[in-house]
C-alpha cells in the first residue's frame, strides 16, 4: 500500500551523507483505501442508515451511498521520532455528502519506541474496530456490526492522547488515555443539520495481544449538548407548564439535551489463527438525557477461511434499557398533543434490534476483496433499530449488501 513518493531530491539535499540503504528523512508516503458498496432492503417504509450521522438511507432499490467511501492518507516522518498522519475521507455524512473531510490530522512524537504522545484530530479508541471501521479490507463484514457500532457513531476527536506499549512475555499490553472534544454534525428529519457538542471527552483504552488473541476494554465519557429544534420546543413547552403540572419541570430537565453526561463502556475479544476467526464485543451506552436512549449491545462473529474465501455468521443485539415513554402528562387530558409529541420523539430513540447476518468475503487480490452479506433484522415492539422510520414501521427487515474494498 505504501506507494512511496520519496522526496529523493529533498532528502539528498538535507542529508548529504545519505547512505543508500539507510532510512532517510523526511519520509513521505501516500496511500489510500476505499469501498464501493450497494445496499437494499425489502421495505420502503423505513430507510436503512449505517449510522445516526447519515441522513436518509437505503430502501428497496440498490443504494451505493450508505457504505461507499474513498480515502487518502499522507504519512510523514520528519525525524526518527516525529511524524504526521493526515487522512481525507469522502463518504456519506450529515452535511458534506461525499465532499472530502479531514478525518485525521495529528502529530505523533515517540518519546521511546513504545511510548508516544499524539495531538490533533484522531480516532476515538472505543471499540476494537473504532480506528479502522472505514477500512473495509481489514474486516470480514460489509460494515462492522451496526447493532454495536452505531451506538458509538463518532469517528474522531480533537485533542491529545498517550500510547504506551509494554511487552510482557509474549503478550503486548497497550494503554491509551485520551482527552479532548468532538463536535459532530447530526442530521435532523425536521430541519437543518444540528451541530452537536461533545465536550470534555475523556477516556482510556486498554488492549492486549498475544498469539492469536486480541482483547480490548475501554471507557469513554463526555458532556453532550444537542441543540435540536424538536427537543428545544418540547423542553420549553414543559417548562411553561411547570407551575401548574406536577412533574413537568423534572421531565423537562430529563429530556433537555444540554450539558448531559454520556458514557460508554466496552469490552471485546478476537481470536484469529489464520483460518478460524471468532470475535465478540459488548458495550453499554449511558445517557442522562431521554433524547438518547441508554443501551446494552453485543455481537458475536464466527468465520472460517477456505483459501481466499471466508464465510461468516454474526449474531447481534441492541437493547434499550432506559424509559421510552413519559407518565407526567395524560394522553387524554388538556395537554394530550404535547404528551403524544413527547412519546413519539422518545419512540424514535428506540434503537432496539436483533440481527442475524450471514456473509462471505472473497480476497480477490492482496489489496482487493469482494463481499456479500444478508442481514435479517428483527425489531421488537415499536423499535426502529438502525432505520430512519416511524416506530412500528416493520417487525422484521432483510438488508442485502455487496461491497468491493481496496487499498492502494
Amino acid at each position, binding site marked *: *500500500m*505504501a506507494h512511496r513518493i520519496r522526496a529523493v531530491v529533498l532528502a539528498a539535499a538535507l542529508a548529504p551523507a545519505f*547512505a*543508500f*540503504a*539507510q*532510512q532517510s528523512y523526511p519520509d513521505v*508516503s501516500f*496511500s489510500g*483505501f476505499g469501498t464501493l458498496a450497494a445496499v437494499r432492503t425489502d421495505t420502503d417504509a423505513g430507510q436503512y442508515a449505517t449510522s445516526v450521522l447519515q441522513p436518509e438511507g437505503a430502501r428497496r432499490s440498490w443504494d451505493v451511498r450508505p457504505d461507499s467511501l474513498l*480515502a487518502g*492518507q499522507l*504519512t510523514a*516522518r520528519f525525524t526518527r521520532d516525529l511524524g504526521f*498522519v493526515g*487522512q481525507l475521507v469522502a463518504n456519506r455524512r450529515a452535511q458534506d455528502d461525499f465532499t472530502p473531510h479531514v478525518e*485525521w490530522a*495529528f502529530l*505523533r512524537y*515517540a518519546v*521511546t*519506541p*513504545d511510548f508516544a504522545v499524539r495531538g490533533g484530530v*484522531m*480516532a476515538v479508541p472505543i471499540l476494537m474496530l473504532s*480506528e*479502522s471501521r*472505514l*477500512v473495509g*479490507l*481489514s*474486516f470480514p463484514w460489509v460494515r462492522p456490526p451496526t447493532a454495536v457500532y452505531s451506538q458509538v457513531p463518532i469517528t474522531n476527536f480533537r485533542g491529545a492522547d498517550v500510547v504506551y*506499549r509494554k*511487552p510482557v512475555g*509474549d503478550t*503486548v499490553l497497550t494503554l491509551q488515555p485520551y482527552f479532548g472534544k468532538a463536535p459532530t454534525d447530526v442530521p435532523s428529519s425536521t430541519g437543518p443539520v444540528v451541530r452537536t457538542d461533545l465536550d470534555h471527552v475523556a477516556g482510556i483504552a486498554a488492549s492486549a*495481544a498475544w*498469539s492469536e488473541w486480541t482483547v480490548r476494554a475501554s471507557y469513554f465519557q463526555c458532556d453532550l449538548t444537542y441543540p435540536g429544534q424538536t427537543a428545544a420546543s418540547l423542553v420549553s413547552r414543559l417548562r411553561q407548564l411547570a407551575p401548574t403540572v406536577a412533574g413537568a419541570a423534572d421531565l423537562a430537565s430529563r429530556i433537555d439535551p444540554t450539558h448531559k453526561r454520556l458514557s460508554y463502556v466496552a469490552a471485546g475479544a478476537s481470536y484469529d*489463527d*489464520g*483460518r478460524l476467526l471468532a470475535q465478540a464485543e459488548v458495550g453499554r451506552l449511558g445517557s442522562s438525557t431521554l433524547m438518547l436512549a441508554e443501551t446494552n449491545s453485543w455481537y458475536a462473529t464466527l468465520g472460517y477461511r477456505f483459501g*481466499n474465501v471466508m464465510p461468516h455468521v454474526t449474531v447481534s443485539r441492541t437493547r434499550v434499557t432506559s424509559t421510552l415513554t413519559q407518565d407526567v402528562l395524560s394522553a387524554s387530558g388538556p395537554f394530550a398533543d404535547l404528551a403524544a409529541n413527547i412519546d413519539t420523539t422518545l419512540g424514535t430513540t428506540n434503537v432496539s434490534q436483533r440481527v442475524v447476518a450471514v456473509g462471505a468475503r472473497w*480476497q480477490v*487480490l*492482496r*489489496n482487493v476483496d469482494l463481499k456479500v452479506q444478508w442481514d435479517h433484522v428483527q425489531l421488537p415492539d415499536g423499535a426502529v433499530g438502525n432505520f430512519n422510520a416511524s416506530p412500528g414501521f416493520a417487525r422484521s427487515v432483510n438488508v442485502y449488501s455487496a461491497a468491493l474494498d481496496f*487499498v492502494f
Partner: protein
Amino acid sequence: MPRLFRALVAAAALVACPACAEFVVVVNPKNPVSSLTARQVAQIYLGRVGSFAGGGQATPIDLPEGTPLRDEFYAKVAEKNAGQVKAYWSKQLFSGNGTPPREVASIAEVKRAVAGDATAIGYIDRAALDASVKEIFSVR
C-alpha cells in the same frame, strides 16, 4: 484434519518456493540480542513492539510484496498469508497506528541495510549469510 491441511500447505509452499525453504533472521553484529523466538520476530514485523526484547529500538526491513521469500517468512513466523498481512497493515496504517516495515529491493539490500544500522533486523536466504550480519533465528 487441520494437521493434514497444514502438511498440504507446507508441501505446497515447498513446491512453490523450492529455493527458499530455509531462511535466517539477522541483525547488526553490534546488536547485543543473540536470539529471538518466532513470536518475538513476528511482533517486531507486525509493529506490535518497537524494540528488541531486553534491547534497543528495532527497525524491521522487508522485501517487496510478491517476493516468494517474504511470503514464506510471514507464513512461517506470523502464520499469515500475503492477503492477511495486507489486511493487517491496512488496519494499522489507516487507523494511524503505525506504518509497515520499510521495504528494500533485494536480499543483498536487506543485508546492506542490516550491516549499516545497529537497530535493523532483516531476513535472508541462509545461503546469503555472512559475517556482515548476525543470525538470531532460523527456519528450516
